[in-house]
């Protein structure tokens, strides 16, 4: 019900922007044209959407794992942090088109390179939040670890990690939002399927209504993924 209301509100807003801005339909088509394109191309959209969804889910899963590992590693040891931190930051400074030839050299034209881009985009907020969260454990709680002469990793598991959970949850919410755009950008690397592929193609052919239809599918995926993440985290009390 509420999702429906949100959807209708968004459509209305969109129509308003189109009407008020006077953008021509080849730049910003109205909702009616896009709905028509959605209906006409539903088979193509579904096929490409599924390809992208697979990249998103795989990439998000790997991104979380790598983000968790990087966050843990940098929070556990200051030396590792000094070494790894600049690399993590740099990984976010490289535009995909510079990376594309290297990715295909190493991973080929298959799903690998697209998943790699999703990983690259999603792991960073997770690593960053986990690091910050682990470092923000209250000093008083750490007294318990000092008294027990606990090694770092036990302190991590039993004191730091529980305190970092809310930070981590916030980062997961962000990563879920970034994953779909990561997959679309990843399809830049070279692809024969996927929403990003379809959008680039439609864009170059000025099939703006098809591009926005693909965008609508992508947007629906993003909202769905975000909502699912929210629900899952809330069930865990986060």
């Amino acid at each position, binding site marked *: 019900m509420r999702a429906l209301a949100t959807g209708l509100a968004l459509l209305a807003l969109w129509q308003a922007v189109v009407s008020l801005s006077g953008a*021509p339909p*080849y*730049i910003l088509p109205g909702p009616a044209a896009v709905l028509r394109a959605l209906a006409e*191309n539903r*088979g*193509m959209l579904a096929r490409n959407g599924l390809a992208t969804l697979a990249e998103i889910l795989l990439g998000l899963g790997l991104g979380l794992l790598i983000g968790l590992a990087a966050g843990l590693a940098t929070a556990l040891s200051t030396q590792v942090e000094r070494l790894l931190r600049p690399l993590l930051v740099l990984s976010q400074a490289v535009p995909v*088109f510079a990376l*594309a*030839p290297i990715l*295909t*050299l190493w991973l*080929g*034209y298959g799903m690998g390179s697209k998943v790699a881009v999703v990983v690259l985009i999603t792991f960073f907020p997770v690593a960053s939040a986990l690091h910050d969260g682990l470092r923000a454990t209250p000093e008083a709680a750490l007294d318990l670890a000092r008294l027990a002469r606990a090694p770092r990793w036990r302190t991590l598991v039993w004191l730091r990690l529980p305190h970092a959970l809310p930070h981590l949850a916030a980062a997961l919410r962000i990563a879920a939002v970034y994953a779909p755009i990561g997959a679309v950008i990843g*399809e*830049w*690397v*070279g*692809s*024969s399927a996927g929403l990003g*592929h*379809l959008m*680039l*193609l439609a*864009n*170059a*052919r*000025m*099939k703006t209504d098809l591009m926005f239809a693909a965008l609508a599918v992508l947007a629906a995926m993003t909202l769905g993924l975000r909502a699912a993440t929210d629900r899952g985290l809330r069930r865990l009390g986060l």
Partner: protein
Amino acid sequence: EPLTVVLDWFVNPDHGPIIVAERQGWFAEAGLEVEIVAPADPADPPKMAASGQADLAVTYQPQLYLQHAEGLPLKRVGTLVESPLYCVMAKADGPVQGLADLKGRKVGFSVAGIEEALLHTMLRTNGVEPAEVEFVNVNFALTPALASGQADAVAGAFRNFELHQIAAAGSEGRCFLPEENGVPSYEELIYVANPDRMDREKVVAFLKVTERAAGFIADHPEEAWEIFRGWSAEVDDDLNAAAWGDTLPHFAAHPMALDADRYAAFGRYMAEVGLIPAAPEVAEVAMDLSAPAD
């Protein structure tokens, strides 16, 4: 071992002979398994071919000289589209009636990397210094930039596509052609390969099959379109249908045949305009596979 061919971009009518041959099963008939890869960035395929990730790459003749100058071990081994498609497009009813009118105006370009090679010469030929024009990289949006009036002209449009595109946006376009404005003629789409890694027999077989397809397309344009559009739902649209007819005349009838004079002349031209330090020998950048191997 499949033969990997990286196109210059997503599949479109420019790739007619390759797609038709694949759809007709002619590669298989010739004992070839062909893998067709479509990238989003035209700068990538030459790198793929040079590094051995692809056997053949589709690229543009002017870029071949840049690739050579930057040390990519590539040679042209065949031709796909044998004449320029590049054009500088303005609105037919707009203030730009000739290239001379571009003085003091804004020109949008897509990143092709050869604006100096083509556009600058075209402007100078019409008495306009490039410095008198404002160039803006509009990347993905050539036609929208022109149609919405944000650019007075766009460079790098393909005459077989963008004219139809702007018509769909409700304007009429006018194309200024490089070969009519001081640029030597060149081949728009060529196949390049790394000669050290190339399986010569396979490449020859591939090119022969595309020659057969090019002939078939010339003889049966309608039927060929029907075959082409069956490649995927994504390529089956009005714009490609309209572009198909405009593209046919440009396919190389004999893909392997090398016009050495043309390659020498364009190399000299690239050196003249300063994009490469010196014109390469033709043999350094191109080979004629129909000639017997040494």
